[in-house]
């Protein structure tokens, strides 16, 4: 059996696949092999965790009725909001015509699709009956539930992203444009519906209100810009395909956008805490205190504020530090900070137990420690995203076609053994 890939005829069969795979591994540098091997190790750990989490009702998570939502919900929020952010940032070039952002479209969309799939995978493992959700959303829709809207919008979003990807790598520009525009609309709607999932809960004052949808949308830009800053710093560092003046300009522009987003993040975080402390509203002030001086303080001050916001802000605004490496490190630190941000905000809503009247002194703080299964699933998902993205970097053309797109089609060839010859692609 043969298929045609990028104008080359490729043998597909067990034996030839092994042969091609061996050839591909031989062609890799040692550091790349080591990187992929490490990721595969982490993916294997994640796979064990995932298998343990599949049977419905098995108590493999650290969650309790008091803290029903744990690390997996936080990781889901992190991944799917990053997806939105990547689409929003890349739309600056593709939809709003800002020249400096033009080169980022493909990398952004590939990473967005991977992050969205990781998010879906994590939430499927968090749910006890994920298949029932799949059918329930369609067969018994419940439009009063923000979670129904969130599931529906993110599902549609994935379809639009796939259309955009197929159009992009198939060379169908109009389909890519259409998919891109539709994906942008859903990229804006989706995190706001996710924010509404938390925002409608009257009994969780730390989440309740219109702040959450807006906050998730604002931090979507933060996480999308941070991810692209990291990616483009790596493109420059390893001189990956498409590295040149255009990608350098893109990195500078991403750095500026990231600086603004970090600044906005500092403001939002500060006001969230200050408003929370005012008035001593039960639940709301407890959440603020838990993060400022209570059990979440270490995570909040060190990871979320210092590592995730202040150091990146300094790296991005001091001209001497605003180098390629500086912007890349800032992006990585912001992503680390966002892990603490998401898990902190999921915890903050539940930290004041709702089971009893206010003023409880017996259990002032709810306790939750993620289980090893939860940690391994999140680490495995992140490794999977990094692994597939590395392969995409190597085997797909992630540069924007400058003038004319070459005829070669590599749609869906992430797992295909054939490597498109680099010199035949539209490298600037």
């Amino acid at each position: 059996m043969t298929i045609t890939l990028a104008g080359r005829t490729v043998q597909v069969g067990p034996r030839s696949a092994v042969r091609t795979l061996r050839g591909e591994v031989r062609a890799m540098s040692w550091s790349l092999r080591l990187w992929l091997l490490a990721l595969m190790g982490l993916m294997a750990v994640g796979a064990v965790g995932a298998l343990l989490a599949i049977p419905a009702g098995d108590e493999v998570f650290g969650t309790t009725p008091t803290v029903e939502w744990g690390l997996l919900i936080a990781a889901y929020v992190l991944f799917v909001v990053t997806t939105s952010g990547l689409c929003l940032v890349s739309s600056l070039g593709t939809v709003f015509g800002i020249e400096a952002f033009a080169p980022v479209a493909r990398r952004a969309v590939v990473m967005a699709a991977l992050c969205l799939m990781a998010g879906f995978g994590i939430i499927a493992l968090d749910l006890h009956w994920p298949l029932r959700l799949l059918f329930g959303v369609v067969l018994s829709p419940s439009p009063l539930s923000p979670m129904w809207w969130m599931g529906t919008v993110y599902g549609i979003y994935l379809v639009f992203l796939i259309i955009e990807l197929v159009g992009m790598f198939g060379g169908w520009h109009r389909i890519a444009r259409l998919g891109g525009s539709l994906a942008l609309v859903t990229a804006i709607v989706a995190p706001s519906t996710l924010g509404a999932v938390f925002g409608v809960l009257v009994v969780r004052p730390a989440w309740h209100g219109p702040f959450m949808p807006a906050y998730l949308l604002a931090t979507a830009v933060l996480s999308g810009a941070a991810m692209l800053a990291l990616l483009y710093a790596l493109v420059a560092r390893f001189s990956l395909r498409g590295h040149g003046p255009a990608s350098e300009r893109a990195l500078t522009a991403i750095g500026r956008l990231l600086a603004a987003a970090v600044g906005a993040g500092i403001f939002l975080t500060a006001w969230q805490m200050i408003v929370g402390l005012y008035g001593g509203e039960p639940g709301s002030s407890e959440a603020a205190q838990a993060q400022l001086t209570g059990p979440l303080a270490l995570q909040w001050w060190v990871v979320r504020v210092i590592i995730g916001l202040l150091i990146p802000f300094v790296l991005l605004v001091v001209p001497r530090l605003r180098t390629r490496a500086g912007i890349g490190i800032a992006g990585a630190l912001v992503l680390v900070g966002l892990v603490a941000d998401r898990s902190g905000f999921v915890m903050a809503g539940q930290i004041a137990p709702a089971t009893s009247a206010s003023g409880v002194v017996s259990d002032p703080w709810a306790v939750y420690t993620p289980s090893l299964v939860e940690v391994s699933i999140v680490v495995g998902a992140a490794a999977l995203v990094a692994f597939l993205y590395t392969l995409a970097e190597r085997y797909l053309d992630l540069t924007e076609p400058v003038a004319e797109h070459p005829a070669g089609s590599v749609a869906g060839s992430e797992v295909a053994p054939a490597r498109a010859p680099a010199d035949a692609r539209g490298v600037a």
Partner: protein
Amino acid sequence: MTALSRRELLAAGVLAVPCLAGAQTLIGRALASDPTKAAGTEAETAYDPKAHEWGFVVDTRNCIGCGLCVEACKDENHVPRDPELNRTWVERHTQLPDGTLLVEAPEAGGAGFPVDPVTLAPMAGPKGDSAFVPRLCMQCDNPPCVSICPVSATYKTPDGVVLVDQERCIGCGYCVVSCPYGARYIVPSGGDSPTGNAGVADKCTFCYHRITKGAQPACVQVCPTRARNFGDMNDPLSPVSILIRDEQTVTLRPEVGTKPRVRYIGLPSQEL
């Protein structure tokens, strides 16, 4: 070539069988299940949910914290034995000298209470008011758990009880997080389970299987002091109607707008 197609066929088959099986059961259930019949059997066809409006009054002045209700509920409904997972539990609310309120429920209150508060060192000075406060699902008239369920697995019956269709529940925990009263939990596998399902949300149903046959909820029947009272609010002579008419009753957390069907008498003054 043939080996390859066999491989492909195998892979497709391995994927298709569980998918089709899952789809079939789910579609079948979605089409067959009528929410109002989920908790019923043929024997109850005579029961008319529209003819009743169930109510519950907890008289904390009578409660002695014996915990029989907690045990009766676990036995009757096959609730998991884990003291963190309950359809009903009993708390002791004690007003401390400094004005704060101590809330404690050792073993969910199912084994009674020690004389001194268990979570604090023995206190110096006089204790303030204290009361045992039995807790259960409030069967809210405006239940947050119903509107937020993404697959409509939680619903309100015409007679005013909030139920969970555990064949439809996906176990997302949104209702657990949304409940102001901590009335819900996710059923773990490998132990007692009210409907034999694991990984689904569960909560007090007012013993719906009993009340639709004319019996009292298990916790009400076993209560030795009439701290728990149950009845039809449409019937002016039912115990709950009389208590609501004659006594001052309050609901828990009225500020969240849930309009509970469970009312309380005699809570410590600080909580009102």
